């Protein structure tokens, strides 16, 4: 028998024996899960992500609040200074008032 004939006989299609599919499926059902990702890990990861988002949001709000407080303090200072200067100017104008112009 030459090589070609041997290869043809080796590669001919053969039907599996009876019960082969059932035996394979049965073995698959009993095989343990090989995935290393446990359900609790997924929940923990989701909680960590949520905590990170909340922390970032809290920090953003805090920074906005600080900026607003500084802006308010600056505004109050500016207005108080303006009022004080106007008070003093009014006093000066009253001292230098000319014949009831004021």
């Amino acid at each position: 028998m030459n090589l070609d004939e041997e290869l043809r006989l080796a590669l001919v299609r053969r039907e599996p024996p009876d019960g082969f599919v059932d035996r394979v499926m049965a073995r698959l059902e009993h095989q343990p899960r090989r995935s290393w990702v446990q359900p609790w890990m997924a929940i923990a990861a989701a909680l960590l992500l949520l905590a990170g988002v909340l922390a970032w949001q809290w920090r953003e709000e805090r920074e906005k609040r600080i900026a607003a407080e500084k802006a308010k303090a600056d505004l109050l200072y500016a207005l108080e200074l303006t009022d004080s200067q106007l008070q003093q100017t009014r006093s000066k104008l009253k001292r230098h008032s000319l014949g009831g112009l004021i």
Partner: protein
Amino acid sequence: MKCFILLAAAAAAFGQQIDLSKLEHLASKAKESTNVSLDPEKLKMASGLLGESGDAKNLVLSMQGVHVRTFEFERPGEFSSADLEPIRSQLKGPNWSRIVDVKSKDEAVEIWFYMTNGRMGGMTLIAAEARELSVINIVGALDMQSLGQLTRQLGLGGGVALPGMNDAKPRTDPKPAPKPSPRQQDDDNDDFGD
């Protein structure tokens, strides 16, 4: 559309806003200096915390800018009238009018109003003493009456308008400036102590 409105508002505020950075060279000579610059965004942030009165909040929102520079010097003569020329040159525009010019031996106060169509659009106050200089620029349609109303509502002062200009209720005991310093008599009468 929003961009266009912002640009239009910026253009409108351009004339009323004074560039106070021209005074920055005095900071190196001052023992203490203050720089306050509030643009519309910061004013909006500040107004959000003025919850005690809706009027105060609305008045602040009507302002487009508040800019303050104050300097306190160790000795008299650290600054002169020439240092204020870059500021006064900006007040030479057609819409600016000096309504108060009070000078004494070692003090000078100038108050300028920006007027368009008979309405006030801004104010600049220059107060110079022997060892202190304050320049305040307020941009916005805030007249003296509203300014007095605002300071009263915020509990800052009695609200003082200039005589003859919608006088607000006067205080009997004027509050000192936020950063008072002892005054010194000086014999010079030109450059604030030179």
